[in-house]
Structures are given as structure tokens and as C-alpha cells.
């Protein structure tokens, strides 16, 4: 599953640390999400999308 967290984060000019604190996860989780090493749960995906004011589909790209 791809995502555009890095792009949205840069657009909003916030650090990984700030995003991590906002969605209550560690910075390592944000790094793994951005690198595509880890897929977020529905709950975390919702939190991240909500933080950027987007829908889950706008942040996370589901692939078959």
C-alpha cells in the first residue's frame, strides 16, 4: 500500500516528530510508513487522514 504522507507532511511543513506526536505514534512508525515498510491500521490511517484534513483514500493508495 502506497501513501503520500511524506508529500502532505512537507506541504504542511511539519516534522516526522510533530506528526508522530499528533497521531500518538513513535517517529519510527512515521518513518516506516513513509518508506512503505509498514502498513497503517485502519485506526491510524483514519487519524493521519483526519490530521491532514483528507479522506483515507486520498492519503493511502490501495493496490491489488
Amino acid at each position, binding site marked *: 500500500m502506497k501513501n503520500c504522507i511524506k508529500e502532505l507532511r512537507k506541504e504542511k511543513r511539519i516534522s516526522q516528530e510533530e506528526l*508522530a*506526536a499528533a497521531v*500518538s*505514534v*513513535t517517529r*519510527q*512508525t512515521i518513518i*516506516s510508513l513513509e518508506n512503505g515498510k*509498514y502498513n*497503517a*491500521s485502519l*485506526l*491510524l490511517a483514519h487519524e493521519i487522514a483526519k490530521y491532514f484534513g483528507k479522506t483515507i483514500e486520498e492519503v493511502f493508495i490501495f493496490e491489488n
Partner: protein
Amino acid sequence: MLAENTKIGKTVEKRIKNRIIYSVCLVVLGAASVILGMGGFLPVELSDYLSGFYSGVGTGLIAAGILTIIRNIRTLKNEKLLKEKEIYENDERNKMIGLKTWSYTGYAMFIILYVGLLVAGFIGEMVLNTILVILGVYALCLFFAGLYCKKTM
């Protein structure tokens, strides 16, 4: 203070308090082990080895218990540390890492025990039976854990 603010904060604080209680139990258990090792309650022919063993294990338990108590009390008193702990313990990736680590360890343990079982036949019947019992208990634990998870999820 964090506990006053959030529900998760309360959970983490409660979890840390519980850990302090468990650590106190660990210290008591360690002290009992040291007393057992030094008190001359053991059979005479085994006392040299066993007394050292029980004393060592007991001292280790006491040290680990005291360190855990100190670390947890420090976390409870420090708002920043408590917040960090809250995030670290509720982080879903960390939880996933924990689950996968246990899972891989479980598989490795099963394979090692099975290889051990094959080799044990050449060493002695006693070793073979011991590994067989461990493997049996392990398989039972695996079965009941699976059953529990299926019922609760």
C-alpha cells in the same frame, strides 16, 4: 497528571503501577530464593551446586526487581517520560513487532526442540524424555492459546 488528562494516560499509569507491584513480588521471590540457597534447606549432596544456583537466581531477581521499581517510579513522577511511555506502548508498530517477535521465537523454539528430540536419542533416554515432555507442553500451550484467540477475536 497525564492520567488526569487522557483515558490512555490512565491505562498506562495503571499498567506502570501494576508493574511496580509485580516487581515487588519479584524481589520477594528473589529473597525467598536467596534464603533457600543459603539457609541449608537443601539436600546435603546437592547443596554446593544448588545453593550457588538459588542464591545467584535470587540475587538476579532482586536486582532486576529493584531496577524495574526505580525505573517505573521515575517514569510515574516525570510527565514527559510518562507521555513517551504512553506513545511507545500504544504504538501499533511496536505492538506488531512484539507479536511477530514472539511468533518467530515460537517457530524457532519448535524447530530447535524437534531437532533436539532427534539428536537426544543418541545422547540418552532421560534427555529424550525431557525434550519430549517440553515439546508436549509447548504443543498444548500452542493449542490452547490458539483456541483462546479464536474464541475472543
